[in-house]
């Protein structure tokens, strides 16, 4: 083992340790920044040391080396700068699609590494070849699937694409891809293989399968799907690491693989659905015409609602997906600060699946500057509603739907919800009669202590802020 191999190996070890340490630190808001910075230094270390491999390339690659180095620097610069700029400027509400895009890039890189392993014919033993094929398959799926997810979340692909026999068609594509993978591996067992066509078709098949698998899934399910593809990319990277005998890739990849899988399962569970239900059930296709409770909704103007909150002693605010759509988090916090200045006790109640990503609302509120000790988890606050004057619901719907408790036929039956209906007075800010993610009507809106404040969240909150300004500090 040469000195360079030693240094490269050690740098990978240091990076792995820093990744683990960083992830561990991310488990608390007070240390989370330190965690990502540590992981970042790990990455800097391993990427910088990797350039030492220049002195270790095989004889036959020497002539290409200058070009290769130039290409590497160019690619690093372009990729890094572009993504860095994108990442710095993206709106917080567009975070899910951004993560999808970056995840697609990782999957694509993993697939590229696997492809070159075939191209260079690095091994002719069945085991490493099989692992290479698996890495390529998963990487490709993650790449094309994440791009579809990005397109859906970014509003570039608005309707799920569904047709009869889709499941069978997808299974057929998958079987074909597996067959091509097998043919590629078999041809590579030969010492002088001619596997180019097989391998090319295999990669195309894998990319196609990623697309086929993702198009029928509704846009709102995409966060779960991205989380799954995130785990997939990790797994693909781990397998690439085995193929390249690079333990740092193995460790980092597998950590993400298992962490991402756990996260996906937790997310699906929080939405009260199974993972296979998310992936294969075409959720939302039939729920459009779901019938709901009939009755009368009362509506009040923003000024009346604001005034009554101004003179309440306690208010709990329940933000939901609509707040993100309206990008009204800043206005909301402005309003909350006014209430606080008037002596009202204000808390935020966050449902675990409010919004479209786990923790989505926390990120939005954090962006607006809301301190995280004003924000309460569902379990911590659910008992307080009964003793609260006003529950203000902003663009949330499913997470406060009492039929989750009572109506066994509802698609969200069994999901734990925030007990907003127990507050003395409930205000709901939404634009109209629109249903939420699950497509069902919400009996809460028909209760006698509920009043609707119709309008875009941003507009309504602006009016409320104006109203309170008008009232002054008396």
């Amino acid at each position: 083992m040469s000195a360079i191999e030693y240094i490269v190996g050690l740098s990978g070890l240091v990076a792995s340790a820093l990744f683990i340490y960083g992830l561990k630190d991310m488990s608390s808001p007070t240390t989370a920044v330190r965690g990502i910075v540590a992981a970042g230094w790990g990455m800097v270390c391993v990427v910088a040391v990797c350039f030492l491999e220049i002195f270790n390339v095989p004889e036959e690659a020497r002539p290409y080396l200058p070009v290769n180095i130039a290409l590497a620097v160019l690619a690093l610069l372009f990729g890094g700068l572009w993504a860095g700029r994108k990442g710095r400027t993206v709106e917080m509400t567009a975070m899910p699609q951004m993560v999808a895009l970056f995840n697609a890039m990782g999957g694509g890189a993993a697939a590229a590494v696997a492809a070159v392993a075939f191209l260079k014919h690095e091994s002719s033993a069945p085991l490493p070849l099989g692992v290479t094929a698996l890495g390529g398959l998963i990487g490709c799926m993650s790449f094309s699937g994440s791009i579809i997810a990005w397109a859906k979340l970014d509003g570039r692909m608005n309707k799920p694409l569904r047709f009869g026999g889709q499941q069978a068609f997808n299974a057929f594509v998958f079987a074909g891809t597996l067959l091509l993978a097998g043919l590629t591996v078999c041809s590579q067992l030969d010492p002088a293989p001619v596997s180019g066509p097989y391998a090319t078709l295999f990669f195309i098949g894998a990319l196609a399968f990623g697309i086929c698998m993702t198009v029928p899934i509704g846009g709102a399910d995409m966060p779960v799907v991205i989380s799954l593809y995130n785990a997939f990319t990790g797994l693909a990277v781990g397998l690439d690491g085995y193929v390249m005998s690079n333990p740092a890739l193995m460790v980092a990849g597998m950590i993400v693989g298992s962490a991402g899988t756990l996260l996906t399962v937790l997310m699906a569970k929080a939405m009260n659905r199974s993972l296979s239900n998310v992936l294969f059930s075409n959720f939302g296709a039939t729920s459009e015409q779901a019938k709901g409770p009939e009755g009368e909704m009362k509506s009040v103007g923003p000024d009346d609602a604001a005034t009554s909150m101004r003179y309440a002693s306690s208010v709990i605010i329940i933000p939901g997906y609509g707040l993100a759509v309206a990008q009204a988090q800043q206005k909301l916090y402005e309003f909350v600060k006014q209430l606080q200045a008037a002596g009202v006790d204000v808390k935020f109640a966050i449902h675990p699946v409010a919004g479209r990503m786990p923790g989505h609302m926390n990120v939005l509120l954090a962006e607006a500057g809301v301190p995280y000790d004003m924000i309460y988890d569902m379990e911590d606050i659910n008992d307080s509603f009964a003793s609260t004057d006003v529950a203000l619901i902003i663009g949330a719907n499913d997470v406060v739907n009492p039929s989750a408790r009572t109506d066994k036929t509802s698609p969200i039956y069994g999901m734990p919800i925030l007990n907003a209906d127990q507050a003395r007075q409930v205000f709901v800010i939404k634009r109209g009669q629109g249903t939420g993610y699950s497509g069902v009507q919400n009996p809460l809106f028909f209760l006698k202590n509920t009043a609707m404040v119709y309008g875009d969240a941003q507009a309504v909150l602006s009016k409320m802020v104006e109203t309170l300004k008008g009232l002054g500090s008396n």
Partner: protein
Amino acid sequence: MITSMTFIIALYIFVLAGFTGYIVISRVPSILHTPLMSGSNFIHGIVVVGALSVLFSATSVTEQVIGFFGVLLGAGNVMGGYVVTDRMLAMFRPSVKPAATSDEKKAQS
């Protein structure tokens, strides 16, 4: 790079790393799930190292092209993942200094 790794040893590493990821994530509070997703997204950006190795020892135009795109995509994954995670995490802050200790407690439990 590090040659001669048997399959069994590789399995050991996979199992240990998988367990580590599992147990570390199972402690993260749901408030941090979104930054965590992008944080782990950043970590698998280490694939850029694999892509760099591939590109350095490329011996044909095909390999160079694939390697170039591998590094390009991998670098995007790393940079983008880091920047968005850092941005999100930097936004989480407690309300006032004196309350910091009790927040810490709350966050750790």
